[in-house]
């Protein structure tokens, strides 16, 4: 009987903790808003980060240049409600990012009298999705002759929604003016294997680039034949 009573108490405690945790504010670890279109300009948000970068934002100091007693950080959840993430003594708040999207924050400062400031405006951090690029071409081999050509195409992921900057290279050397998503290989007359590459980056942030390469084999053409008579 006593054993059953202890088991019942344990069940009740577990239930209580579960209910308490459920009733507490749930703070999302992902973006506040993953559906709205990306910003069109850098100035549309407070900060743009590459995928995998940590968020690191700070509240102000008092007029004497000293940290306030406490900083109450709030994060907007996907439903648009602000949830207090933490009440901390330091003024810097960091968070590991997850999925791309907007991460929206507000802060309230509290001084030594316990007086709190008005809540700040929303500070938006936009986290970009991972950027990758692959080069495709109809053929990886072409004749080493000026008239031969093939078209290289840079296929970027994400494939839409973002403005991408391109820069083509030939054997690691920037090809001047080659800044579109395709590059027409032509004029190659020397037999060799040439590595063509493309460096891509978001127009919103040049700090998270991606690179793709493609080797093109330039086959020597037969020499001009001579006809002989027996």
């Amino acid at each position, binding site marked *: 009987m006593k054993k059953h009573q202890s088991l019942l108490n344990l069940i009740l405690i577990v239930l209580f903790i579960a209910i308490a945790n459920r009733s507490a504010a749930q703070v999302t670890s992902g973006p506040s808003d993953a559906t709205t279109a990306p910003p069109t300009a850098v100035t549309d948000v*407070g*900060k743009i980060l590459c995928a995998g970068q940590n968020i*690191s*934002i*700070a*509240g*102000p100091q*008092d007029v004497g240049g000293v940290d*306030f007693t406490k900083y109450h950080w709030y994060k907007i959840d996907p439903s648009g409600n602000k949830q207090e993430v933490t009440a901390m003594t330091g003024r*810097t708040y960091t968070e590991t990012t997850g999925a791309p999207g907007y991460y929206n*924050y*507000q*802060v*309230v*400062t*509290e*001084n030594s*009298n*316990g*007086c*709190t*400031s*008005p*809540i*700040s*405006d929303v*500070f938006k*951090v936009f986290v970009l999705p991972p950027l990758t690029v692959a080069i495709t071409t109809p053929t990886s081999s072409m004749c080493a002759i000026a008239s031969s050509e093939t078209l290289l195409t840079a296929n970027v992921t994400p494939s839409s929604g973002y403005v991408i900057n391109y820069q083509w290279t030939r054997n690691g050397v920037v090809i001047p003016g080659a800044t579109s998503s395709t590059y027409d290989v032509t004029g190659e007359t020397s037999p060799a294997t040439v590595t063509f590459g493309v460096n891509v980056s978001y127009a919103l942030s040049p700090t998270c680039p991606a690179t793709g390469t493609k080797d093109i084999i330039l086959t020597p053409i037969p020499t001009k034949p001579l006809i002989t008579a027996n």
Partner: protein
Amino acid sequence: MCALTIPKKTTLLSCFLLGLVCLSFTGRLKRVISVYTGLALSNDTTVTVCGSSVTLNTVPVAGYSNPSWNNGSAGTSLTVTSSGDYWWQVTGTNVVTNGDFSAPTTNATTRGFTSAYNYVKLTTNCPTCCCGVLSLEGTYAVGTNPNSYHTQFTAFGDHTSGSGNMLIVNGAATANTTVWTQNITVIPNTDYVFSAWATSVNPASPAILQFSINGSPLGSTINLSPTLADGVWQYFTTTWNSGSTSGSVPIALVNQNIASNGNDFAVDDIVFAPVYRQNVHVVLNPIPVLALTSPHEVCSFYDLTKAIVGYDTGTYNYFFKDSNGNTITTASAQNITQSGTYTITEQNKATGCTSLPQQTTITIDPTPQKPGITSL
């Protein structure tokens, strides 16, 4: 009707002559005293006071003296502690001859009055009297001690001095018997007061007396108290306006009690005199009691109305002052941004009565400005 606005003051010894009434206040005078001017008995004054008491004072009226009040007290002032109707009066010369029964009792002429009762004195021979010369109903005497005239009458002194004469009566068993009457001379269109002091001399069946003038009853009957002890003098008074009557008219005290057992009483200090009476209607309004919570230490600003216990704008007006004594609006009071001691009073909208000022201390702590967020 005229109205006078009186400034408020905590202790106002304000004696103001409005032709009719002079008042001093232990409370705080509210706002308006309405005075009905005139010289008839219908003079009415309304005194509205904030507080629990007010002292009413008479004012001199030429040719009149002996101020008295509705409760029988004499003097120029009366402190009242409840709302209600009061009056004071001053009387002219008493036209009653020997109203205090101090004159020699030799005969009806020297006594100054006549009666339907039989006069007796201590030396009267009364073989049928069981207990003194006033043993028989329908008899009266003028003396200093009722008990000297009837062994069952209580011993006590007269009303005038305690040692003078009074009229001592063994009531008759016949209604409307005149106990005391006298012809007096009146002038037309004059207010008169007819008053007397009376008491039972035996507790059984207290007498029922009535004033009369010119043969007509005047005022309500005078019912001697069945509970007051013998010798406790009771004051009875009524007023009369002579109208067109002039010259000599009889005034009388008539006994309406026909009980043979008891119905014994004494009368003294009969007055019939021109009178000036002032009716005073007193309204005592309570002073609001304002309670505040204090102190308060808050961030940014404070709503001073939150410090008021039972804040009720439907009933009260509120007045606010800052630490420098400057009046501030209610809107400002609800957004106090400066630390300091603030003073609040409340005024009852219906009565105009204002509470004592109360103070509360507010400490406003600075609040951080709206922060901005920067990215590191």
